[in-house]
């Protein structure tokens, strides 16, 4: 098997566990969106064009509350601002690839493809850019079709799903399960701790801005502690 194909399969396999929550999450989005008054076509257009679950939920919720357009957009885009950091993180690894490759990757840059790619680069730092791209698209193949199909199924099923399954908690559990294995040094632990404490303290800040402040300070705390420990020797 060629190294590229191996890398692709590693991407598929490491992203597979995430399908356990991506499926129900997309299904839930379809249900919630149709219950909020969108038809199946609108629900699918939304899922395909935005392709960012957390922000789609944020937009649905604020639109249901009849928030002004600008507030809806600011909230949903704030949820997606973390992807600037994903884009920055991946850029040095893929800079040598043609623009059309990177343009396509940008569309598919979601939590799952990012997490899978970064973890795999961590394990095999010697991979070429094309192998890294294969890992990325392996993860995409594992989660993206499922996201679209489950959104569609959710939209079609509509109100038939009872609200008793606590699917609202699928997202927090996924994110926490993704973060926990990354907490392998004191600076990582401190960054996560600062992130939690500040996001709770600033939860009252409007439109998700508390999240952004908490994340920025937490990042600086982790990086600062790492630098301080290095300087101390």
């Amino acid at each position, binding site marked *: 098997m060629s190294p590229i194909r191996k890398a692709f399969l590693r991407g598929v396999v490491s992203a597979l566990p995430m399908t356990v929550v991506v499926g129900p999450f997309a299904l839930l989005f379809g249900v919630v969106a149709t219950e909020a008054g969108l038809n199946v076509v609108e629900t699918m257009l939304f899922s395909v064009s935005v392709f960012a679950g957390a922000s789609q939920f944020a937009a649905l919720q604020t639109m249901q509350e009849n928030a002004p357009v600008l507030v809806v957009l600011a909230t949903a885009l704030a949820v997606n601002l973390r992807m600037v950091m994903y884009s920055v993180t991946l850029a040095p690894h893929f800079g040598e690839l043609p623009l059309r490759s990177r343009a396509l990757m940008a569309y598919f840059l979601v939590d799952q493809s990012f997490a899978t790619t970064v973890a795999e680069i961590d394990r095999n730092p010697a991979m070429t850019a094309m192998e890294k791209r294969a890992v990325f698209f392996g993860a995409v193949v594992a989660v993206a079709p499922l996201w679209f199909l489950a959104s569609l199924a959710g939209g079609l099923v509509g109100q038939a799903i009872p609200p008793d399954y606590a699917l609202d908690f699928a997202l927090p*559990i996924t994110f926490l399960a993704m973060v926990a294995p990354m907490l392998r040094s004191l600076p990582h632990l401190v960054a996560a701790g600062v992130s939690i404490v500040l996001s*709770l303290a600033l939860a009252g800040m409007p439109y998700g801005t508390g999240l952004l402040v908490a994340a920025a300070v937490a990042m600086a705390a982790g990086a600062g502690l*790492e630098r301080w420990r290095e300087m101390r020797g």
Partner: protein
Amino acid sequence: MIDKSTFWIVMPVLAAGTYAIRFSFLGTLGARPLPGWLTRCLRYTAVAVLPALVAPGVLWPAATGGETDPARLAAALVTLGVGLVTRSTMGAILAGGVTLFALLALVGQSGA
């Protein structure tokens, strides 16, 4: 019910904005190296952003109207704990999910 004229403005602008965010550095930076302080910061992006994204919802879930729910809180702590000890995302999700549904079933309370 969602106002359709709002929706038809929000959807394309959110789609374009989200794409622009994703494309920002990946599409324009090329292979230029980033300054050291920036890469140092970026090592901590995931652990800085994801906990902040979920912490308020864990403590004050929207599904219970913002009231702290012992089942959801316990499920979150178990997820974090199992993930820390086993380093397995899949194991952490399963442990968290089982905890959540076991506790919800135990107190006979609906999820939403």
